[in-house]
């Protein structure tokens, strides 16, 4: 297992998330793709912690722990926003949510 393999894998995961965020119409799927990208970034932290020069410092792991916490908060607020938007527009299709002050 080389560092490159891990990094390529996490890059692939990140690009899948990016692709999902760009191509889908459904707001929830877009949020879900952002979640994927966040996780790919987390994976990078862990990889660099594991393959880094100072693995004893545990800073990568700490970063991921905080990142997971933030991701949870982000998911909660993001989905609350989606629900609020749905109440207003009666749809979660991002192409239709195009007017301000609806």
């Amino acid at each position, binding site marked *: 297992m080389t560092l490159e393999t891990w990094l390529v894998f996490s890059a692939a995961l990140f690009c899948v998330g990016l692709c999902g965020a760009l191509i889908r119409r459904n707001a929830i*799927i877009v949020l879900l793709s952002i979640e994927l990208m966040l996780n790919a970034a987390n994976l990078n932290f862990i990889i660099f912690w594991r393959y880094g020069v100072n693995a004893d410092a545990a800073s990568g792991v700490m970063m991921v722990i905080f990142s997971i916490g933030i991701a949870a908060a982000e998911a909660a607020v993001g989905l609350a926003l989606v629900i609020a938007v749905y109440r207003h527009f009666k749809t979660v299709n991002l192409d239709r949510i195009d007017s301000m002050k609806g």
Partner: protein
Amino acid sequence: MDAPFLIAAVLTLLSAIAAISLRNVVHCALCLTLTFLGLATLYLQLGAQFVGLTQIVVNVGAVAIVIVFAILLTRSSDNPGESRFNKGAIWAGLICAAVFATLVVAINTSYVSMKSGAPAPPLTVEKIGHELMGRYVLPLEAIALLLTAALIGAVIIAMKESNEKGGGQ
């Protein structure tokens, strides 16, 4: 390349692709859960036991459930005739491919100090606890505040209009 990594990586990638491409939104959410699980096993393979298990507790136990609830509450009734993809989906796909290619090239050409992993450092839960209470105590408090704010904010955002509606009826 060892077998556990290969299995987990393929599973994670395939389920991630399924999560962004399936028509049924609930299926997407379930596939995302599978991705989270695969990622957790990858964390475990990297020797980050605490993070892997936290990943399962938070992402599978909470985030996936919240997503699923949101899906059911919004009842995203895509009419079947309509495409689930954007108008510019092809361009977006191309951009993603370009990003991926750039990243791969960057990874392979950059100088990396340590090519293969040293034996995993023993990172006990106790040590993480000491770190959290010592060097990282300020971020910990900050994240506690953030989570509280997020909780209250999410409740207010999701409740606001239903209150107005309730008053109106």
